[in-house]
Each structure stands twice: as structure tokens, then as C-alpha cells.
């Protein structure tokens, strides 16, 4: 079952968010390692406020993400911003050059998606070792991925290829 192997990012987490702040921490922290039922952790999360969890996730993220991936994430955030601005503009100011809006918006979305894919591929080491849900299926998946891991250079070349085609379509569509 997935609980068996706990990678580095998740191992400190059961203790850290709950123990210092939440009032009910002593009781729940004792239950969670000993009896890992689904109900135990849920109550833990439910008791600690969502803001706390979000903050914890944020710190965890900053701590565990390598510099290059952070750069990609910044780019993705920028793309979300660009797409959002275009969308807001479309809603507020009307969609008159609809082609232009669409191509601009989908360029942002497409680039976001491609960057996300690149991020997944390049940071695959940390991600894929993480346990997945179904036991039998995961073994299959892991076996396959163990055979053909995608190298960073290959991933980047794919990314360039996809982006080129994306922008070709966008420019063609913009009128």
C-alpha cells in the first residue's frame, strides 16, 4: 500500500504542521503513526486550519524545489497571469477581435501546459518515486518508466518542438 515508502518531502509533514500550532495535536499525532487509518489523518487535517496547511505546503515547496524548477514555475505563474489578464480583458472590454483573443489566450494556455509537462519530465525523479494509488497498476507503471526514462535533453527538445508548432498555429490564427 502507498504508506510503505515515504519520500523526503512528505516524511516531516505529519508532525510539523500539527504539533506546534494545533491544539489537538498531542492526541492526533500519537494516533497517526500507530494506526494509519483513513479517518485518523482526515481528522488531523480537518482540525488544523486550511491556511496552516497551505502555508506548510508553501514552505515545503520552497524548501524542496530545485532552482531550475523554480524558474519554470515562475514562468508558469507569469503565463497564468498573462492568460488571466487576457481573459479579464475579454470579459470586460468585449471580444471583438475574437481570433486575436483566442490565439493569445490559447498561446498562454498551451505554453503553460507545455511548461508543466516539461516540469513534470525534468523533475520526474522526485515525482515518480512517490507512491501512486493502486498497487497493482503502479508496479506496471513503474516497470515501464524504469525502462524508458526520458532524459532532460530529450524533454527539452520535445518542449521546443511543441512550442514551435504551438506558436506557428497561434500566429497563423491571429489574422
Amino acid at each position, binding site marked *: 500500500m502507498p504508506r510503505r515508502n515515504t519520500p523526503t*518531502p512528505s516524511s516531516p509533514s505529519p508532525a510539523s504542521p500539527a504539533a506546534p500550532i494545533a491544539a489537538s495535536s498531542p492526541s492526533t499525532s500519537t494516533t*497517526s503513526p500507530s494506526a494509519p487509518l483513513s479517518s485518523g489523518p482526515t481528522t488531523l487535517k480537518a482540525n488544523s486550519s486550511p491556511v496552516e496547511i497551505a502555508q506548510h505546503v508553501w514552505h515545503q515547496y520552497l524548501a524542496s524545489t530545485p532552482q531550475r524548477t523554480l524558474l519554470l514555475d515562475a514562468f508558469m505563474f507569469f503565463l497564468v497571469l498573462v492568460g488571466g489578464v487576457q481573459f479579464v480583458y475579454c470579459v470586460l472590454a468585449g471580444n471583438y477581435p475574437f481570433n486575436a483573443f483566442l490565439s493569445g489566450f490559447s498561446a498562454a494556455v498551451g505554453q503553460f*501546459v507545455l511548461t508543466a509537462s516539461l516540469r513534470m519530465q525534468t523533475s520526474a525523479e522526485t515525482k515518480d518515486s512517490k507512491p501512486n494509488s493502486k498497487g497493482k497498476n503502479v508496479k506496471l507503471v513503474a516497470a515501464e518508466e524504469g525502462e524508458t526514462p526520458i532524459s532532460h535533453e530529450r524533454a527539452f527538445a*520535445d518542449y521546443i518542438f511543441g512550442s514551435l508548432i504551438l506558436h506557428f498555429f497561434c500566429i497563423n490564427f491571429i489574422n
Partner: protein
Amino acid sequence: MASPSLDVLLKGNSSRNVRGLLRIIILCTIAAAAVSSRLFSVIRFESIIHEFDPWFNFRATKYLVQHGFYKFWDWFDDRTWHPLGRVTGGTLYPGLMVTSGVIYHVLRFLTIPVDIRNICVLLAPGFSGLTALAMYLLTNEMSSSPSAGLLAAVFMGITPGYISRSVAGSYDNEAIAIFLLVFTFYLWIKAVKNGSIMWGTLAALFYGYMVSAWGGYVFITNLIPLHVFVLLCMGRYTSRVYISYTTWYALGTLASMQIPFVGFLPIRNSDHMSALGVFGLLQLVAFADFVRGFVPGKQFQKLLTAMILIVFGFALLGLVLLTVSGVIAPWSGRFYSLWDTGYAKVHIPIIASVSEHQPTAWPAFFFDLNFLIWLFPAGVYLCFRQLKDEHVFVVIYAVLSSYFAGVMVRLMLTLTPVVCVAAALAVSHILDTYLVASKPSEASETKPTADNNQSGLRSTRNPVVGVYSYLSKFFISAMMIVYLLLFVSHCTWVTSNAYSSPSVVLASRMPDGSQHIIDDYREAYYWLRQNTPANAKIMSWWDYGYQIGGMADRPTLVDNNTWNNTHIATVGKAMSSREEVSYPILRQHDVDYVLVVFGGLLGYSGDDINKFLWMVRIAEGIWPDEVKERDYFTARGEYRVDDEATPTMRNSLMYKMSYYNFNSLFGGGQAVDRVRGARLPAEGPQLTTVEEAFTSENWIIRIYKVKDLDNFGRDHSSAVAFDKGHKKKRATKKKGPRVLRTE
């Protein structure tokens, strides 16, 4: 898994090359067989474009080749849909024409002068060869056995379900679309397996090509998201799914929007919304998965499922709201008719009137797929046993397309590829099991361990338990081989007998067994071409619009594009009303000639009298109080053309034009309509507002000229009556009794 027979025979490193070479040779042979089995029609008849739609594609291709791409893109065709015209460049799927245009120019560049007509005729067989190859690739992704791919390629190459739309000369969108369909699926499977952007991008590119080629691309648009959605529901989300799907969707949607005919549909039309919904869902799931890396605990699984359900519910609600409020276009009529087979008949008679939109008859499945149809469930079962991501795809594809194929005859085409995949999996499984000459020694070793683990799962984990008896091996293999041989002979028979008729040229057998070609269509079209002014407007039922445009090169009122239902209904009204009503309609639309198809003499059942009820129905949809379907049936509800025909029927323009002068063929005897087996009234119909201009050799095509307004301002019936009263003698002298022309 089972070691295939070839591996047993040719083991070792050097033999890998031999096997590869063999495989290539086999594939080439399959492609050649696929091409050559589609050439029956060229050999029997000639290199000619078939049926109806291909004539338009052919005409458009000629335009493209002559005027270049940009002119083609902006093509406004004023020679169809007179007086409206048609924005042809923006309302067609250009993939087919562009493909053959490119082939034409490449061949020109290589200094091989080929007529564009021959390219168009041979395009479908050529692409079917490629389809066989694509099928090999697709099936190879499904199975570890090398024979499955080859078998699938063979099946795809010669199965009648596919041949029916891709014989030489059937220059239709499906000719290249099926290749693109299969290849897009192959690339998609590749993308899901590898999780690389490149495969996803390639899938998107071919999806874009597919969009440019066939309206059936909606099938892919819905199948791939469904596959992803099912994978998500099975808890099989991986980064590979995310990468391949989002890349495919982002690029593919953009690519599809490049086609003017599709335009903004992918974001407006409900048909495409599932893809968008799954795209959004996948973003959420990916984000959730990302966050999960930082949050421990099993409750996440629960959270995830809950989130999926909530978001999906919201998306569905939003979709319904948007559809109701009219932001998103409602589902198209063809789509409704997919779910409710009676829908089209009630609401859109124009769709129901097309024979290929009718529900499929049961024998058609066996006729088109032969023994593949009963191997199909076995293959799907085999997919269930392995059930990797790609097998899930096959299962979904199988379920969906078998439903659709049951609803519409035309969609048999989309069923065929998955049937071939599944059947090839089944056959290769059987052959791999039974064609191994050596006794299964390893089976006895693995048995006890399997028994120790779980005896219940033994069959699933180790399918080759082992067949020891040579007799059973021989028996089963011989049986399969007989089935395969039967399949080949069935395919050849069906192809040569059922699917190789151009339908422009009819063939019949003389009493002595020799073939007799009935060439009335072309005779009539060439008559139009040579004897009428270049701008003469021809009115006919829409079936013949493309042919008139292509072969006679004359403007038509309506054609097979059927984009304007009202216009078609106008023609239907003109055909089904009395002459006094029809004549103003004809005048208003500048009609010079009216063309009807009449099979009564020859027993040709696809004629206009048999299609007449559809004209009435379509006209009734627009003018319910002027045209009534009930009036064309007798009191007992029969559709008759003989003495008992209703007055409305007998006074309709179509009836009159069909049977005008038909009596005179039979001398003094009573005229007999051979299609409907009816004896016609002794008194033939009289025409006043149109006059006979041409009747083809076997009376299949009759062309009437619309009379000009009378010189003295009389209406036509009184003018005719006046002529008859005073010049009866001259009229009879000029027109002797008609006899059937014989060569």
C-alpha cells in the same frame, strides 16, 4: 507470454534481421493486396469518379489545381445553389483536395505527368495501403505478439467494411480520414505510453489533419477525452497522461480551429465540450497530485475523488446553463439523431432522407466484417485481461463505436478499425497458443508456483497452460486457417459484387451472359453540356446536384451539400405541387431545365419517384399547409402510381415528368412501371408548362425545358389547349409514336 512460431524457428541475433525483413515484405504485400483489391471497379468499368459526393470533391480539386491554394480558400461558387451561391472555400473540409493537390504537384515536379483525375481515383486505394500499415503499428502497441499487428493489417486491408468507402474512384473524405483516424490513435497510444511531448504534438498534428479532412473528427475529439477520463476514474493518473493529453488538446484544438469550416466550433459547440472539460479536470488533478507531494496521508485519495466529482458536477451544470442560455451552440442535429434514432425522422427529414444515416441492419455487420464480428468480443475480452492504459482505450473505443455503428450505417466505418484490432488480438492469441510445435515444457514448471500463489488467478497470469496433444493443435490451427481463407474469399466476393459499382455507370447482364453497360447518366449530362447554354440553370433533386456540377458543368439549384434546408424544400415543393403552383417557383429561380431520374422502364429502383416522398416530407416541413404527405397516399395508405393514385400525386410535376409519354413506348398496350410493378393509367399525363427536351437511352434521365412565358400573355394550359384544338394534325405528324431506341 507465448513465444510466436517465428521465434521458435528463427532464434538468435542474426535472425532478427531476417525476421525484420520478412515483416517488411509481408507488410508491403499486405499494402499491395489492399490496393489491388480495390481496383475491381477500374478494371470492370473505367477510371471514373463514383457516386455523388466524390464528384464535388473532384470538381473542387480541379479548381484547386487550376487556381492555386489561396483562390481555393476564398472560393465563392456561384454555380451551385443558384441564386444563393455557396462559400465553398469556407464550408468544406479541404484536407482531401489539398492532399491530392500536393500529390499532383509533387508528381509534376518529378516530371511525371499524371492526370488529376487519376490521382483522385487512385487516392483511396493508396491511402488504404497506408491504413494497413498504421493498423500494424497500432496493434503492435496493444500486443506483445508480433503476429497480431500483421493480422490486423491484413484484416484492415481487405475487410469490406472499409473497402465499401475506399474503392478506386470513391474519392470521398473517408478515403483519407480512416487512415488519419487510425494513425492519430496510434500516435495517441504512443503518447500515453511514453508520456513525451513529441508524441502528443504529433498526435495533435495528425488530429489537425484529420479535422481538415472529415467531419467525423468529432469521434476522436470525444474518444480521447473519454479515455483520459476513464483512466482518471480508475485512479491511473500519471504525469504521462497529463503530458500527452494536455499537449494534444492545446495543440489539437488550435490546429482544428485553423480550418475555416470548423472555426470557433471547438470552444462553442457542445460536441467539443467534453474535451475541454477533461482538460480542465486534468489541470486540477495534476495540481492536486502536485500538492499531494507535500501533504501526507491516505485521506488524499478520498479528497481527490470528492474533488473530481464536485468539479465534474459543476462543469456539467455550467455546460447545461451555458447551453440553455445560448452561449454555447446546442448539440447539432446529427448528434441528436445518434442518441434517438427517431429524432431525425421527426425533426430533420433532410438528415433522415440520406440512406447512409439509417440504422444498420443486422446482416450488414456480418456482411461487412465476416468472422471478425464474432472474434471481436473475444479480442475485447483479451484486452480486459491485460488492461493496461492502451487496452482501456480499445475497450472504450469498442463500446462506443459498436453503439454508433448500430445507429448509423455510415459509422460502420469507425467500428471497422477496432474490430480489426480486437479480432487480430484474438486470432493471434489462438495461433500463438496452438501453432507451437514443441511441447510446452516450461508450462509444467510454472504450474506449481502459480498454484501455490493463488489458484484462482492462475488462468489470468499464465494463459499458456499448454496444449500437449498434436491432434488438438492441428485441429484448431486448421480451423483457424479455414476461417481465414473463407474470410479472404468473402471479402473478395463482397468487394467485387457489392462495392465496386460506380453508380454513375450501371452494369447489367444480357440474356447471353455478356455484360451490358448502362450509361444513361453520362449520356444525359453530356447532352446538357453540349446542348444548353453555359449558364442554363438545372433543377433536380439534390442527389444529382454534384454530378450535374461535375459532369455537365451547369449551375444547379440544390446539391448534396444540403446547407440550406429551405432551398431544398423549395425544390421539393416545385416537384410535388401542381404545375400551376410549380411554374412560378421555376420562373422565380430562373430554372431553364428540370432533370428527373426515372427507372420505370429499366427497373432501376433508385429513381425519383421512390425518393418522392422525401421531397414531399421536406417540403411539408416548410409549407405544412400547402404540401401534405397524406395527400400522396391512397385512402388505404398505399403509395401508388397506377390508376388508384391520388389526384395530388397524379397532378404533381414529378409524377407528370416521370411518366410523360411513357404510354407511347408500349404501342397500344398498357404501360408498366417495372420498379413498382404497377400498370399505369391508360391516359398519360399532360404537361403544359414544361416540354420534353431530352430522354436518355433507357429513360433513366429525362430532361425538360421550362417554357418561356406565352407570347400572347395566356397561361400555359390555355395555350396548350389552343394549340391542340387547332393544330392537332401537325403535332401528331411531327411526333410519331416513340420507340425504344436500340443501338
